[in-house]
């Protein structure tokens, strides 16, 4: 790699690749999975706060001893965070990475 490497412009093959159908499909795949997932988990966290404020009765109901619904659901937030991350990691391993790999094979000729 030298300083004399040609100036990159927008007709660069990489940029052409970015505009290709396969690459767009890959990005759409990512967005279609990740954006709803994020909306879902944000909604769940914010719902918990809403419940705590507007459903105090329910959240203060005891399950046993001094353990209330509020405390239980609060601790469950840790569990859901982990579950969501696990789900994402599995999806990335099984769906996204193979698709990226396939695209890499196809694009191999460029370099």
């Amino acid at each position: 790699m030298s300083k004399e490497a040609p100036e990159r412009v927008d007709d660069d093959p990489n940029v052409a690749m970015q505009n290709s159908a396969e690459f767009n499909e890959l990005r759409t795949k990512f967005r279609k999975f990740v954006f709803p997932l994020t909306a879902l988990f944000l909604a769940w966290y914010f719902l918990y706060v809403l419940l705590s404020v507007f459903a105090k009765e329910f959240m203060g109901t005891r399950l046993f001893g001094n353990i209330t619904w509020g405390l239980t659901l609060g601790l469950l937030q840790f569990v859901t965070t982990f579950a969501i991350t696990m789900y994402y990691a599995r999806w990335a391993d099984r769906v996204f990475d193979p698709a990226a790999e396939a695209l890499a094979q196809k694009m191999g000729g460029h370099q």
Partner: protein
Amino acid sequence: MSTAAASIIAVVLVSVATLAVGAFGLRVSRTMSDFYVASRGVGPILNASAISGEYLSAASFLGAAGLILARGVDMLWLPVGWTAGYLVLLVFVAAPLRRSGAYTLPDFAQLRLESIHVRRVSSLLVVAIGLLYLIPQFQGAGLTLRTLTGAPLWVGQLAVAVVVCLNVLPGGMRSVTFIQAFHYWLKLVALLTPLFFFAGMWASSRMPSGSGAVDVADWVEPLQGDHALYLTYSLVLATFFGTMGLPHVVVRFYTNRDGRAARRTTLVVLVLLAAFYVLPVLYGVLGRMFAFDLVAEGRADTVVLELPSRVFEGAVGQGLTALVAAGAFAAFLSTSTGLVVSVAGVLSQDVLRRGTGPGLRGGIRAFRLATVLAVALAVALTFVSAGVPVARAVELAFAVAASTFCPMLLLGIWWRGLTARGVIAGLVVGGGLSMTAVVATTFGADWEGWFGVIIRQPAAVTVPMAFATMVLVSVLTRATVPKHVNLTMVRLHAPENLDLDRGTFHPDPSRAGSRSGEGATARRDNVTVRRG
């Protein structure tokens, strides 16, 4: 042997062990790249332990239990947000940032926006957030030594400052990785062991009855008091979106080998963090039973340290107190070490580098000078800052990070239309407003009504404002969209196993100029340094 003597021995042992582990790491630290990001050759478990070790600061070790003791279970939100912030970081930021090849947040800002001015503003913010986060660490150290031995506050503060310097100066990031992994496990053991003893007592029904004056029921209902909804949402926003903007957190994702390893690491981190955060909650509960007077005395932050000696007598109480003290020091040391490395990295690259000569040697000399400078500054600020509770100070650092770097990263990675001017305007608005809130809180300002509430938890207002400013100004200045935005976007989003030339990036601002046409060329000539 007194409790004080046992605690001092424990603290000295932790410091010596830390330096020893650091020295071990030093032998494998060879190049500039080792120095900054440990050559990207750290396995997921070790890396996750290090990330968790670094992340669990004074606020987690002392502050969370203190807040739960004083304010009840709605403070559970702090640890939940701290954990979930990693998820947001992983899904939206980690992979593109890794692919960009930029070492630090200012590197990323310059790479994406092709402007040296954005770099400067980002550097300033990294230093500000880093210092803001360092203050509670040093505070916690002073508090711990005072609680256990009666020593003045500055003794603990200086002790941590000196050990951090000794750690960072010779080894850089690689040795720091080992140190922090070691610290995570130490912290976990330090909080777990007393709980086993409590459980043992409980099982043999020799549990002392405690002060018993407190109605445990009144605090198991979450969220009480005025404006609870706003305050909690604001806190949630700050922690969810602030995590990605903390300079010492982001740099950790570079030490993974590839995207897959980065995801593994995050999973392990979440397990380690969640396992840890159950403990402060239990300490808060036990504190309600045995040490509730601490709240009235304004010493809720010390509940973790004082609980063992209140329940157990004699050697057991002393031993457990010493263990907890050791864990607390591990917390201060690991977080401040990571922060100092990040702040010093930015200071040396952007401020000091030119004065210390070229090449690896000049770079390392600048880094060392910057380390001393950063630690000295943080200690000075700790001396002048008022007694803000440890976890509060950290909340504010999160709020500033969420109001500045979060919009820059999210928009920078996911929106082509971002311009340098838009980013600067957003950073100034978000950073300026949130910093104002921080300064007001630090100096004890307390306003009535909504204004006071917003000052207390600024994130829910300042984060949307920063986003809006960046978008609006970018749209207004859309003629100045970076010239190589298409190339940069390919580099950020093309999957890693796609073997294409992503260009390279030079972190030295004197060479990677913002003038049109030079950015890409300057970025390209550095590939051997980075990957070597």
